[in-house]
């Protein structure tokens, strides 16, 4: 890759990192500042039966997101954070997809017409839009895993060798 295009890729990667970071801070705060509403939304998925687990997910997940968002904004442990986000986003997307299928069955409407608040921090959204959005976030996180765009990072990697 020649130098100008390498630089462009680096800047694009930094922009993706900042965008992801800002988005996770925003959506995390939206949920974290109103944990009761988030608790009700998490409950709709019927993922866990134990109150402690349900409460723990609702209480900590938003702040987990905020923390990861801050790491990306600051450029700390970028690839570890990106991997964490991929590991979180993929099951979340599957769970949201499954919930949408249940709602589609109950409402007898086309899949893309299903609209609900998935607890993702941005209110009610059409499912197809949400799935595309999540696919974009997963791709952006995978892109960060590639290791480009190390500029404007406080500590890109925690490992001294990297």
């Amino acid at each position: 890759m020649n130098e100008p295009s390498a630089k462009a890729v680096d800047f694009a990667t930094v922009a993706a990192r900042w965008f992801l970071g800002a988005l996770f801070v925003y959506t995390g705060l939206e949920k974290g500042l109103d944990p009761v509403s988030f608790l009700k939304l998490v409950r709709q998925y019927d993922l866990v039966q134990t109150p402690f687990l349900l409460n723990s997910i609702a209480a900590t997940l938003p702040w987990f997101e905020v923390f990861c968002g801050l790491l990306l904004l600051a450029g700390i442990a970028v690839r570890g954070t990106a991997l964490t986000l991929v590991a979180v986003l993929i099951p979340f997307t599957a769970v949201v997809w499954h919930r949408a299928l249940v709602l589609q069955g109950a409402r007898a409407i086309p899949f893309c017409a299903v609209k609900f608040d998935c607890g993702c921090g941005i209110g009610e959204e059409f499912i197809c839009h949400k799935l595309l959005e999540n696919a974009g976030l997963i791709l952006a996180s995978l892109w960060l895993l590639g290791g480009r765009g190390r500029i404007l990072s406080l500590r890109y990697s925690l490992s001294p060798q990297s």
Partner: protein
Amino acid sequence: MPSRGSISAILLEAVVVVVVAAGFGFATNALSPKGLNLERDYFPKATNTVGSARQTPESVAVHPASTNENSEVAEIDRRIKDKGLQPIDRAETEKLFHDPRYQQGLLVFIDARDDTHYTEGHVPGAYKLDRYHPEKDLPADLNPCDFAEQVVVYCTGGECEDAEYAALLLRDAGVPIQKLFVYGGGFDEWATNHLPLEQGARGSGVAPAEGK
């Protein structure tokens, strides 16, 4: 393509991020005044303790919502009954609100929404019970509930189940379940029908501004 060494470094880094971020999450929840109590069961399982009481002619008369017309109301009623509680419809709730016993404290209304919504507007004279933080309100609510003959609990209405769980909280605190009624239409239905509202603290007598 990252090398094998750097893949393990990334994995290790991810583990560190997960552990620290989870710790941050638990710590923030513990420090936040809005934080959740991790041990509390906010959605206790239904126990049909009212049982036969629901079937008496008297209870049917008090809860005409049990012979409701539309499926949404039927669904809400079913949900309330599944929790062993007694549903009450708007007409009956309104009748209780205008009953002279309400002024005497023999009828009590409990608003199970959060502080913000309560302050914005509630049924005049309703006590507040934020079921997610019951330690704030429950002690002040128990005396009037003990004295009352009937207690009507409401939240937003519709899909909101907070009124039901608040009623169960009152039951667990010693209020006889036969006294407890859940107004499934909730605050939204009450306000939409232009019924009396009060803003701010209980007993303020301040009606919300028109259009609110």
